């Protein structure tokens, strides 16, 4: 094997080391750029009116996105009520009953595939499932589409968290004569409680910035919702509509909504990540 001169090797090493450091800086630079832009432009849009008033037509000063704020909260809450119990029970099957069975492997595989399915496809699916047969857009359909996106996330994190509970705990409870469901709910869940909550938080973070699925299901509305059974205002679709509009004041509102969404999602993500990291260490 031919030896390359040492200077060449040293030089190419220095170049690659420099480039890789530069790459890391690029990544951090863009993160900083995006955060700064959203925070600066968002802050100038946020006021008391932003949280308390209804949207105004373009050109009319004042106005806020109170209805969209409430809509987003309600849709997300509904999605949690639908997706979390189902996901947790599914996760219980994988960790407590299925474990190494073929069925469990299939379900794990399906969860990973569903997690990777684009959210816009989920939107089309729920449109076909609910909006098309019913003939109108609804907040419920929006909640269902978010629940579908949440479900595989909750299933997998639940399984992971329940697996961290030592088997001796289950065995001692079973040996005392407790039935399996009691062992699961009162012993295993209690031991894994904070982990389960983290999983739910992660799932909420995952869906609360979603726009594409709501576009075809909840749509949007400039009014207060009477119920979730009609088109329901929400922050993310409002951002899309306002950003695409030619009106300055609407675009300004979109920045305010972006700041809210970004801060909510980032803080939920950071909290749950910190917790998970600690768990891995311990």
């Amino acid at each position, binding site marked *: 094997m031919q030896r390359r001169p040492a200077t060449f090797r040293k030089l190419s090493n220095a170049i690659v080391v420099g480039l890789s450091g530069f790459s890391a800086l690029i990544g951090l630079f863009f*993160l900083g750029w995006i955060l700064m832009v959203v925070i600066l432009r968002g802050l100038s849009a946020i006021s008391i009116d932003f949280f308390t008033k209804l949207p105004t037509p373009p050109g009319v000063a004042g106005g806020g996105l109170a209805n969209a704020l409430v809509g987003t909260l309600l849709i997300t809450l509904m999605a949690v009520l639908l997706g979390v119990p189902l996901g947790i029970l599914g996760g219980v*099957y994988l960790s407590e009953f299925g474990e190494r069975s073929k069925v469990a492997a299939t379900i794990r595989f399906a969860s990973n595939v569903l997690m990777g399915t684009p959210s816009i496809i989920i939107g089309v699916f729920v449109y076909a499932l609910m909006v098309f047969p019913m003939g109108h857009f609804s907040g419920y359909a929006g909640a269902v589409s978010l629940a579908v996106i949440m*479900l595989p996330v909750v299933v997998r994190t639940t399984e992971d968290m329940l697996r961290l509970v030592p088997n001796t705990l289950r065995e001692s409870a079973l040996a005392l004569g407790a039935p399996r469901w009691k062992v699961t709910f009162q012993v295993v869940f209690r031991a894994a409680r904070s982990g389960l909550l983290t999983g739910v938080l992660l799932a909420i973070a995952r869906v609360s910035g979603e726009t594409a699925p709501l576009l075809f299901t909840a749509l949007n509305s400039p009014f207060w919702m009477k119920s979730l059974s009609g088109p329901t205002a929400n922050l993310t679709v409002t951002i899309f509509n306002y950003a695409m509009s030619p009106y300055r004041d609407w675009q300004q509102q*979109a920045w305010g909504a972006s700041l809210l969404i970004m801060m909510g999602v980032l803080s939920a993500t950071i909290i749950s990540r910190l917790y998970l990291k600690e768990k891995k260490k311990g």
Partner: protein
Amino acid sequence: MEVTSSFPGAPSGAPSPPEVIKPVARARKQGDTLFRWITIGSAFVVPLLIIGLFYSLTDLSMPSLRHFGLKFIFSSAWNPVKQHFGALSSIYGTLVSTFIAMILAVPLGLAISLFLVELVPPAIGRVMGSAIELLAAIPSIIYGMWGLFVFAPFMADHVQPFLAGIGGDLPFFKGPPMGIGMLTAGLILALMILPFITSVASDVFRMVPVQLKESAYGMGSTTFEVARKVTVRYGIDGIVGAGFLGLGRALGETMAVTFVIGNSHRISASLFNGANSIASTLANEFTEASEPLYLSALVELGLILLVITIGVQILSQLWLKRMRKKSGRGL
């Protein structure tokens, strides 16, 4: 023997008659069977949803499937007034924007992982790694806002004139620098998949046995040589897995792309021109589609995207499984 007699409260007589225990045991067993079935039922919702996805999308796209047949995939016509629809421009845009994202994000992600794992102290590497991972937590629509109002003007003012200057003869860099278009969409996609590739590649690099690296260093290799000949080669399977993960993300990314791609149904060689992707076409036109055939053509676009992304997902899952079997541990 001695042990049993040391329990004063232990029943000394005959064990309690079995009839007393049996109903309790049966109820307990029934309760557990029911519980088990409830959990199985919940778990089965996931695969059922995937089947449902295929079924309902195929069902709703039937009119378009019947009307256009295979021509749909190969036609670039898109005229809602005349009811001519074809998926070619959307498929083209999806593939090209994803391609741009991949050729930028994969090398960048590998370089970042190398830096984080091999070159800086672990504590700093972890903090920087978490910061890069935050890029994945920023919602798509925020990338869209930033892309449309900040990054696209920046591209138009600085990057695109520069590219036209150095590569003006190439067909890719022709046309007016408008900011929005295929190139900008590809760049933002690259940024969005970067954290996924970085995080998986970092995990892979961390799994390389220290002895392997140290023996290479001991032979006098430079950091670059160790990375190229030991780390990357040892972790090549995982790196491919990371690529798959990024690919799946990029193909279906919707809002950010919709904001900046320019939404044009024309196929053009220049990356400066407006284009569209399957996801952006859906996001833009779905709620406007009043004619049944129009709606059905859009759903068929969605079906094509579903088939592509599920295909990529299945491939990547199988790849990771193979890898896990080979190395005996997961990521």
